């Protein structure tokens, strides 16, 4: 459909029509699912692949943070007063960047900035991923139910979506995290784990509106397709139609909006930490580091490294999400 003009021989081989006419030789006929075709398209998109590569790299960094830090840095909460100029409270030599401290040290207490950025990836990605998971789960269920059943069910869920979309999430999250943070003993978890759970819940629970809207719209149009009628005329029950006929067609939009929701959640978590209601010090998060760095604007590297980390993460996810959307383009998946 949108074939590039310079189609080389190799690429034509990859089109399904070529497979149909038997270019592949006498081998067993193998069908290509829409997923496989999307993957072939994605493989040609260098920008999206770069984004995907960075995303994988970041995930690996987050998972193996202790190992990486033990090789290239110092424990994230270890003070290195010897690196600090006691007169100005700034790192000796401006930033303290050296082979020992790759990203330099923090002003005042001299913690290893590299280790803190690496550990910050853990918190950011953990919260962003699980919050996205919650949003996607709630959003998909709500959207499919609203779109498939219609009527008053649709009306109620749609108005609920409107309420959640109109909600001043940031203000509410500030209040909720602040209040619930007081109930450490009652909730049975405390410290960082409590904060992380709270953030995942708050971010995830207030973001399902967008995805539910998209899924509802898609379900509305899928419901009217003739293959749903065909299944019904065969005697299929509601759950069969929902799970076997409609849901497989929703995987593409779900994947796309999940990948685009992750960077939004990274930013949201950073914003909450920046405002001081996120993870509490001394645990390292990118947002809290930025917040602390505002006091030391004369030491720019303190702000640049966590800022760059957020920037690269968000950019990589967005590029990957855009590429995924192009690859799973609904226009070509008729």
């Amino acid at each position, binding site marked *: 459909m949108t074939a590039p003009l310079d189609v080389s021989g190799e690429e034509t081989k990859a089109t399904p029509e070529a497979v149909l006419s038997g270019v592949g030789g006498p081998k067993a006929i193998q069908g290509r699912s829409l997923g496989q075709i999307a993957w072939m398209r994605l493989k040609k998109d260098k920008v999206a692949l770069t984004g995907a590569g960075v995303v994988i790299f970041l995930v690996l960094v987050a998972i193996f943070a202790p190992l990486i830090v033990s090789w290239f840095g110092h424990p994230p909460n270890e003070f290195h007063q010897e690196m600090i100029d006691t007169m100005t409270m700034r790192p000796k030599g401006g930033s303290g960047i050296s082979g020992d401290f790759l990203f330099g040290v923090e002003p005042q207490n001299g913690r290893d900035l590299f280790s803190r950025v690496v550990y910050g990836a853990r918190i950011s990605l953990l919260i962003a991923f699980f919050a996205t998971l919650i949003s996607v789960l709630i959003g998909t269920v709500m959207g499919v139910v609203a779109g498939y059943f219609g009527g008053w069910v649709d009306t109620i869920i749609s108005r609920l979506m409107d309420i959640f979309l109109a909600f001043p999430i940031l203000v509410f999250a500030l209040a909720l995290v602040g209040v619930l943070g007081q109930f450490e003993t009652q909730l049975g978890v405390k410290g960082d784990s409590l904060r992380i759970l709270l953030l995942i819940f708050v971010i995830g629970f207030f973001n399902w509106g967008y995805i539910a809207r998209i899924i509802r719209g898609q379900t509305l149009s899928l419901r009217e397709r*003739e293959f749903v*009628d065909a299944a019904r005329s*065969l*005697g*299929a029950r509601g759950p069969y139609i929902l799970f076997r006929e409609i849901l497989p067609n929703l*995987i593409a939009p779900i994947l796309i909006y999940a990948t685009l929701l992750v960077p939004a959640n990274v930013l949201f978590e950073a914003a909450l930490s920046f405002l001081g209601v996120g993870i509490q010090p001394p645990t390292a998060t990118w947002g809290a580091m930025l917040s602390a760095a505002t006091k030391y604007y004369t030491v720019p590297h303190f702000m640049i490294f966590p800022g760059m980390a957020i920037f690269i993460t968000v950019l990589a996810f967005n590029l990957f999400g855009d590429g995924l959307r192009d690859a799973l383009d609904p226009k070509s998946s*008729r």
Partner: protein
Amino acid sequence: MTEPLLSVQGLEKHFPVTKGLLQRQVGAVKAVDGVSFDVRKGETLGLVGESGCGKTTTGRLITRLIEPTGGKVIFEGHDITHMSQGKIRPLRRDMQMIFQDPYSSLNPRHTVGAIVGAPFKIQGVHTEQGVKKAVQDILALVGLNPEHYNRYPHEFSGGQRQRIGIARTLALKPKLIIADEPVSALDVSIQAQVVNLLEDLQNELDLTYLVIAHDLSVVRHISDRVAVMYLGKIVELADRKGLYESPMHPYTNALLSAVPIPDPKGKAGRERIRLQGDVPSPLNPPPACRFHTRCWKAQEICKTEEPPLLQLAPGHQVACHFPENAPALAEPEVAAQT
């Protein structure tokens, strides 16, 4: 005469038109308004009419994809008009539907094997040599390569897709197939292939068809009897020969005159009847004879009294006060009986 396989009696479907916050009903679209016909075992009944006359709705009412407002649908002696979906499920094996659009009637995420095998799965039917073998046999039957089992619908052309759709309806060896515009989405050259396939299958598997179409030549090719619909009602029902050679209802006449003749020289031999105006809205259909607003023969009685569907010649029913080509009343009927 044996009992008909499918009997439709006074079938009605009125879609409510609601307005305002409280969904107050302000009217109804009378999509199907009292349609009656029988489909005998082994025959093909064609249902024709222009867009929006209620053909497709009739098909969907019979398969119970939508709920009838009134009337009766009797299939093999069972009244299925208001049967619950649970009770109707086993009957669905014997009554299948071919859909119009081969691009929308196949789920793009399922393989051909899964699509054609779905009836076995949904109905819980077990086959002797497994579902895969059964599906491959059906694929071969409709002229597809059985090795395409693992392919996805987007890898096929429109005609091939329609064959997949037909294969799905044949899976459970139904008795009645309701074909809703089975070829209208296809190329003319492919149309012939699919129509011939439907005929071959009918001979081979002893099928009964109800073919819904707007293409008169397709209907002429495939049908044994033809019913003509106008604004939710049947205006004429006759065997193929009677309908095409001596149409009685003015609307049928007009329809037939609109069929293009492939021979440019043959044009002179026929007069084209041009109907004036549009089809009236089914929201507010004309009283009495619904065709009187566009009929050139309409008189006062057409506006006040609804013409009943009467048998004017053997096997030829028409609903008109002033039928054309009608044998002189009374006498021919006697002649037919002797």
